[in-house]
């Protein structure tokens, strides 16, 4: 195929659109890392919960996009409970324990989903599904919606961290745990809220992606890898960095699809992660691995 201009524009546009959702997932992951000092290997499963929220919504005749608010509220409650019941028990444990624990939690969530909905692939189309033509350039409409919503949410997330009391508390704990406690910030509650925010963002990201993909219980794995990549590229714990990292991964993936082929896109992403780990292990915005 010849690489004409329209084709390249289309590819880059699609990459940018995908990058928006990746950015949202990466932002949600990096907050957990920065504040809870927890590399959440179960984060992909949270995105999968979003996928199946969309599946449930569609089976009830509700548009996936309309399910975002109720799913977010529900998830916030569940995540707060999960924090106190589960995550809090490993928060001061060695990193190995946390890795194994969060892996286990992710597997439990995915297995439970498989038990309830079976492993059969599913779709969750929205009434707004379809493609849009901008001149000769074709883009899928759910992707545009996902992009816009993700950008708004990621910016909102950032604003929340920046200007609200709890956001400041979260950043204070991330910056200096002991000092934060000295000035009277309730540590456990802050961590719980940070975790809940992260979980909600991941679930909403899942709901936003759901209409443009085929859903299965283990579909979240891909996003775990992508989010890791974006988080590493953007410096672990750095919210803006994760955002930029997500965009970079999206564009890079699209370029790989266009110029090497669809089969190789994951190899390209993981290759990019590897190169970044070696050349700039602290990401674009960091000096040393410190949050």
């Amino acid at each position, binding site marked *: 195929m010849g690489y004409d201009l329209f084709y390249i524009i289309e590819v880059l546009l699609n990459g940018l659109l995908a990058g928006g959702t990746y950015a949202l997932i990466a932002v949600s992951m990096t907050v957990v890392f920065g504040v809870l000092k927890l590399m959440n290997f179960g984060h992909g499963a949270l995105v999968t919960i979003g996928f199946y929220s969309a599946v449930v919504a569609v089976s009830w005749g509700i548009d996936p996009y309309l399910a975002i608010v109720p799913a977010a509220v529900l998830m916030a409650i569940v995540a707060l409970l999960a924090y106190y019941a589960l995550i809090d028990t490993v928060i001061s444990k060695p*990193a190995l324990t946390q*890795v*194994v624990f969060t892996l286990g939690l992710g597997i439990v969530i*995915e*297995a*439970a989903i498989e*038990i309830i909905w079976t492993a059969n692939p599913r779709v969750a189309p929205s009434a707004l599904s379809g493609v849009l033509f901008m001149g000769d350039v074709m883009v899928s409409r759910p992707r545009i919606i996902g992009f816009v919503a993700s950008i708004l949410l990621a910016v909102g997330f950032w604003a929340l961290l920046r200007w609200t009391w709890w956001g400041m508390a979260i950043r204070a704990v991330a910056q200096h745990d002991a000092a934060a406690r000295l000035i009277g910030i309730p540590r456990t509650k802050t961590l719980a809220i940070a975790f809940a925010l992260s979980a909600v963002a991941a679930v909403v990201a899942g709901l936003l992606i759901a209409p443009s993909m085929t859903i299965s219980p283990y579909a979240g794995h891909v996003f775990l890898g992508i989010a890791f990549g974006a988080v590493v590229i953007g410096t672990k714990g750095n919210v803006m960095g994760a955002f930029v990292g997500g965009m970079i991964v999206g564009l890079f993936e699209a370029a790989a699809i266009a110029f090497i082929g669809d089969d190789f896109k994951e190899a390209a992403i993981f290759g990019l992660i*590897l190169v970044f780990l070696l050349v700039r292990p602290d990401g674009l915005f960091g000096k040393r691995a410190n949050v």
Partner: protein
Amino acid sequence: MSELTATAGRQAVRPAAGTTGLVLAALLLVLAILFPMFVSRYWLALGITVLFWTSFSGSWNIIGGYAGQFSLGHAAFFAIGAYSSAWLYSVFGFPTLVGMIVGSAVAALMALCIGWIIFRYKLHGTYFAIGTLAMSEVLRVLAGALPWFGGNGGIPIPLAQERNWLLMQFQPMAFYYMFLAATVVIIALSAWIARNRFGYQLAAIRDSEDVAESIGISPTRLKLAAYVISAALAAPIGTLYSQYLMFVDPPTFFGLLVAIQVVLPAVIGGLGTAFGPLLGAIVLTFAIELSDRVALRPGASLLAYGAMLMVFSVLLPRGLWPLLSKMLPGATR
């Protein structure tokens, strides 16, 4: 400094295996040798599963447990072994045994190159885990995308016309003994490493890389050595497993699940201990088998698996072995 394993495996620093320990180990070996002669095919298959995971996880344990570098890319070396022998046999007709040796060499070389880069750039902790995972995923995608290596469908291993030990197509009973041999080699090697200079140096690195360096140990070289040994051991197990299944494909040999599963017997049994992977493999295999029989729904065994990980990581972060070794009279310190 390995943030991931710093506190996990200190138990294993000096397991002065006394006579009692050796006698117990010998007794266990005799039992393992006699086991297939008295059991049904079902139990034999379970035995093979246990020994397979023991040897595979034991090979990971050298880099992950003894050296304290939490690799999430070990499946790559396992798959290299499986693909080397299957590919060389099905395309060129090379005997499997030759393919197995080639696979081990390729895996060792791969570990040498990757490890040299990774350790030189001082990736450790979660960075090392993600870096090795990325490496393995790149290889998985390449194996699935290149038609030369069978693509996503993998390579079926052609059935040999006549049984020939060079081709390594055996009855289940023989596979049991092959995996048992691999297990014995790896456990013996692990026990040897733990009681030797090499093992002490690895333990020093695991506890604090900076301190180790200050007393004249070269972390890069030693970690590289452990990584190469780990990889060279994983590849033949991949060959054996592919012969047992009679096919290779990317998800079975390269998948993320395999990369995680290989870590677990060692973690649950006891990181950086010779018998940890065996203990962990026994517990995991039976837990999964049991949950499969009780629940009879796809996903149930995975659920039990995940739940076990959560429970073990919190309640027994050092694994079962330290607990058990206290009960064995004089078996370890």
